[in-house]
């Protein structure tokens, strides 16, 4: 478990069991995507796009929940880093509290997780924002509403990683 106590705080209460139960598990042959978005409509939409593209999908509504799933924040029960074998993270940029950029940074600064490709989504086309995210290690920056073709292309980022 990475200990960056200055940045990561323990969440009160830990990850609720219903949330854990929703994390997809299985054969491991499909690419497992963690989708992060605080907007419920967008979350449902991205989940559908991912499922239709044959990915295994876990959706969460905040960056902090994402860090719990990834095992970077101590929850109840505590999880090993990437216990759910997430192959790719796709996250909204603008979220209250911890932004998608903060999540990207945290993942990239963690030795056990930095290889996980991270894709950022945003409804706003802000060149500086895009540049900063790519510089921080994001694979791609998608403009919302995300298209099915964008989602189908995501597996390319995962394949690139395999030795």
């Amino acid at each position: 478990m990475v200990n960056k106590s200055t940045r990561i705080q323990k969440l009160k209460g830990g990850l609720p069991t219903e949330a854990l139960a929703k994390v997809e598990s299985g054969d491991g042959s499909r690419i497992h995507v963690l989708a992060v978005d605080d907007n419920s409509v967008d979350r449902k939409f991205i989940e559908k796009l991912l499922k239709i593209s044959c990915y295994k999908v876990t959706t969460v509504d905040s960056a902090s929940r994402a860090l719990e799933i990834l095992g970077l924040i101590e929850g109840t029960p505590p999880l090993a880093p990437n216990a759910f074998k997430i192959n790719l993270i796709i996250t909204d940029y603008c979220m209250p509290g911890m932004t998608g950029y903060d999540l990207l940074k945290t993942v990239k600064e963690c030795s056990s997780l930095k290889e996980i490709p991270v894709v950022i989504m945003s409804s706003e086309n802000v060149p500086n924002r895009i540049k900063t995210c790519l510089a921080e290690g994001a694979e791609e920056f998608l403009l919302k509403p995300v298209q099915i073709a964008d989602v189908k292309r995501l597996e390319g980022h995962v394949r690139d990683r395999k030795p």
Partner: protein
Amino acid sequence: MDVAKLQRQHVDLTHALFKEGFLDDQFTQLQQLQDSTNPDFVAEVVALFFEDTDRLLSELTRALEQDPVDYKKVDAYVHQFKGSSSSIGAHRVKVVCITFRTCCDEGNRQGCWQALQQVKHEFILIKSRLEVLLQLEQQILAAGGEIPFME
């Protein structure tokens, strides 16, 4: 009821909704994602949009009643609203949200109030039309027909 008649009504209504700018291409994207494994997908997304909007409109009203107004907070709510209306293809709602955000940037209280009334109005319009459309879809399916797709 005659399936063909229902389907024609569906085509006409959909066509009108696009022509009048209530819906845009994004709604077609949603419809194309619906399949036999998830036949209520569009209805579910629309229901989420209605729920989300009701909540956001209450928050916006409350936020604009404060003195002084926290425009950052108002803008954050409008941003959410613009996002979900954009994802669902609710074009006219999205357009008003853009104006609303400009008023927030300018700290224009009067403008914000007007935009809020406008967006409430547009929401009522799209909501009633979507409800009719989805009801038609239910009737078509119940009568054993298929929902016609817009090209």
